[in-house]
């Protein structure tokens, strides 16, 4: 060991640089081929996750205070608007409740259960947002010890809940979630309508997100009329996402310049700026093939591709 130290002094720095570059390249290669569930992260996580859990509360409360100051001004105006909206919604709600009873009755008849209650869920806290400004993923404080696997769908809890993202890698006490607003995210989706040709694809787009705060909504059939505010849900066709989870609302859907399909924006249902707690659905989407564990790293990309192609075919077949 001591000999090595002496030798290290004599090695020109250039050679150490080469060694480090080769080491990094080797690690990149290894994780590229063998998936991201690496032991380094898992060991580091044991030490760092507890620190982050504490610190994050500090960060969130700090952010909360700032946010409070800012929103106080808008609050009164907003309150008025909301009161009006509330009145509208109340009347709508009672109407919908009636329909819901009817639906329950009919569902009982058909033998379908309520969509969400059949899933086992677990709540988790967001403990770290991604460093840097290019990506939108975050860590949550639960991992394999709580039954979370790669491919689990993640929702925002509460009444205004919606799809948040998908678990892309997981360790003992943490899991990494790629948000649907990430540039590389693609979700097979459908427009909530009574027409049948309703599939579409929701893609994250950093450019669009920075400019408008929206996601892109693509590959909508040309014949489908989509009004602003139409609900977009996850599709049955999706290979990764469970069906009928609210993603957001359509906006500005227009026919593409190539005159083949329609596209527009999607306003996400979830407020990604203020995400502190999420619900993780422990059930995985059953695709028939099943995700084997070796495929987990690339599952994000490959599924995104298949979903995109699904969207294309669905859109093109008029």
């Amino acid at each position, binding site marked *: 060991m001591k000999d090595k130290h002496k030798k290290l002094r004599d090695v020109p*720095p250039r050679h*150490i*640089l080469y060694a*480090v*570059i080769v*080491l*990094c*390249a*080797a*690690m*990149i290669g*290894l*994780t*590229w081929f063998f998936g*991201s569930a*690496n032991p*380094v*992260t898992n060991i*580091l*996580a044991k030490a*760092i996750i507890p*620190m*982050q859990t504490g*610190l*994050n509360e*500090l*960060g*969130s409360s*700090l*952010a909360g205070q*700032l*946010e409070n100051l*800012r929103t106080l001004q808008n609050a009164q105006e907003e309150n008025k608007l909301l009161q009006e909206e509330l009145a509208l919604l109340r009347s709508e709600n009672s109407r919908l409740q009636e329909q819901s009873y009817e639906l329950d009755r009919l569902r009982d008849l058909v033998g379908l259960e309520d969509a969400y209650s059949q899933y086992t869920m677990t709540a988790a806290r967001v*403990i*770290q*947002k*991604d*460093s*840097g*400004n*290019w*990506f939108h*993923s975050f*860590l949550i404080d639960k991992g394999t010890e709580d039954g979370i696997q790669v491919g689990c769908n993640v929702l925002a809890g509460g009444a205004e809940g919606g799809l948040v993202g998908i678990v*892309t890698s997981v360790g003992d006490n943490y899991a990494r979630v790629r948000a649907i607003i990430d*540039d*590389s995210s693609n979700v097979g989706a459908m427009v909530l309508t009574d027409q049948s040709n309703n599939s579409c694809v929701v893609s994250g787009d*950093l*450019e669009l997100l*920075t400019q408008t705060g929206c996601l892109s909504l693509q590959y909508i059939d040309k014949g489908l009329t989509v009004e602003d505010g139409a609900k977009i849900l996850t599709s049955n066709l999706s290979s990764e996402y469970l069906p009928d989870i609210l993603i957001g609302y359509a906006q500005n859907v227009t026919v593409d310049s190539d005159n083949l399909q329609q596209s527009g924006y999607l306003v996400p249902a979830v407020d990604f*700026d*203020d995400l502190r707690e999420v619900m993780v659905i422990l059930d995985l989407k059953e695709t028939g093939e099943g995700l084997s564990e070796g495929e987990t790293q690339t599952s994000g990309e490959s599924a995104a591709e298949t979903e995109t192609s699904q969207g294309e075919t669905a859109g093109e077949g008029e």
Partner: protein
Amino acid sequence: MKAMVRRGVVTGVIILVAFLLQNNIFAAIPLISITPNLLLLVTVTFGLLHGRLTGLFVGFFSGLLADAFGGTLLGQYALILSVLGYGCGFFTPYFYLESVLLPMGVCAASELIYGLYVYVFAFLFRGRFNIGFYFMNIIVPETIYTVVILVIVYRFLVFVNRRLEESAKRRSADKFV
């Protein structure tokens, strides 16, 4: 030897603090939509202060930490940060503690290279060709932000460094007495 261990520990703590600040405090504040790149800042500063090898190792470990919790591939940030840290070491001879201008310039240049690296590998390869947009909306703001933070924390890092060097000297002096 003791001084080296001490320096290693202090450096490690600084890297860890930078990482936690970046990911837990800055990232949690939604009003500031762009976060500064503190790990790069630490790498650049250490590279400038101590030369190529220190820059290389600080960059490597900072990058490894960022990779472990942020990257899709282990090693992608370690690679760029160690190369940048090494590169910053070339400016050590031209560098005076009193002037913040050289660190600002080197830091800005490193940020631009870093931003382009991420853009090319994570975006360009997926067919996002609008480099002008990414440059103006992400790379440039991040660079400005990081340089501003550098000006603020630079004194602190130099101070810590000076203390470490002084204590190391005192210790070696004690030995001979």
